[in-house]
């Protein structure tokens, strides 16, 4: 599985995501600086990592979403390349229009930094194929602006089309319908606020995130 991780100024979870990609797929991803205009050839998976790109200036992910590399990422997504946006990466994907809705300031104002229970709502995508439907998993969150918002019509469509990938088992940040992660229409782009790359080895306290990367590796290897 050939993968890449985009790095913006202020990204700080890029290396953890790279470690997760390599630990599970056996292959080191390429780290791609946001100012590049082209991605490496033949990518199966692009990671958009967490952090504080551009210091969260203006809006979280707003300026990163307009970086030169994001045009290439959008084109790759349109061609079916898998894209995984985590935390700030999710914010970047909504700002870039690759996923609907927006992430706002947490309803309770506080920066939330703890392990949360998520239910896996949709196991039809490569991202979630190694989970059971309705399974509860534990994954850490660490964010200030994770409150997912979309208008009622969009929310109904997401639910109706089975595009809610993960839901918080209890209120965490005020997200509409407790949505923690969503898929695009074609199911190859996933954005989520929790950090699965921080739940892949025993030392992390939870290995529940590992199966996302295993599902991707499996699914993408099977595509060749």
């Amino acid at each position: 599985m050939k993968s890449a991780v985009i790095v913006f100024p202020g990204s700080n979870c890029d290396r953890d995501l790279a470690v997760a990609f390599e630990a599970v797929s056996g292959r080191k991803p390429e780290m791609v600086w946001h100012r590049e205009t082209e991605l490496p050839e033949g990518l199966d998976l692009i990671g958009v990592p967490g952090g504080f790109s551009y210091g969260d200036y203006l809006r979280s992910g707003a300026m990163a979403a307009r970086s030169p590399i994001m045009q290439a990422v959008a084109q790759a997504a349109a061609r079916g390349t898998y894209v995984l946006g985590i935390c700030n990466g999710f914010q970047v994907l909504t700002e870039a229009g690759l996923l609907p809705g927006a992430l706002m300031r947490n309803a309770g104002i506080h920066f939330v930094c703890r392990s949360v229970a998520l239910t896996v709502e949709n196991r039809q995508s490569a991202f979630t194929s190694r989970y059971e439907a309705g399974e509860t998993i534990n994954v850490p969150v660490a964010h200030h602006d994770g409150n997912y918002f979309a208008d009622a019509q969009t929310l109904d469509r997401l639910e109706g089309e089975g595009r809610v990938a993960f839901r918080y088992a209890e209120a965490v940040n005020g997200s509409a319908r407790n949505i923690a992660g969503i898929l695009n229409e074609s199911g190859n782009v996933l954005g989520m606020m929790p950090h699965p790359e921080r739940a892949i080895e025993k030392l992390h306290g939870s290995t529940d995130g590992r199966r996302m990367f295993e599902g991707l590796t499996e699914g993408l290897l099977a595509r060749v």
Partner: protein
Amino acid sequence: MKARVFVTLKSGVLDPQGKAIQHALEGLGFEGVNDVRAGKLIELDVADCTSQDDIDAMCRKLLANTVIENYRIEAIG
């Protein structure tokens, strides 16, 4: 030419910062503060030939997230 762009959350969108400010004002003893919503002011200094459409495009493409925000442009000479 200077232009000022006011970016505010759409009504109906939760503004926890506004609420926090409201509570702080009440804590200072101000009564009758019914609601507070906090927005942003972005001041632009642009070439005189910049059109209203250009500034509008800046707002739509970057300065405001139109999913959750409104914007208002004031051009000042």
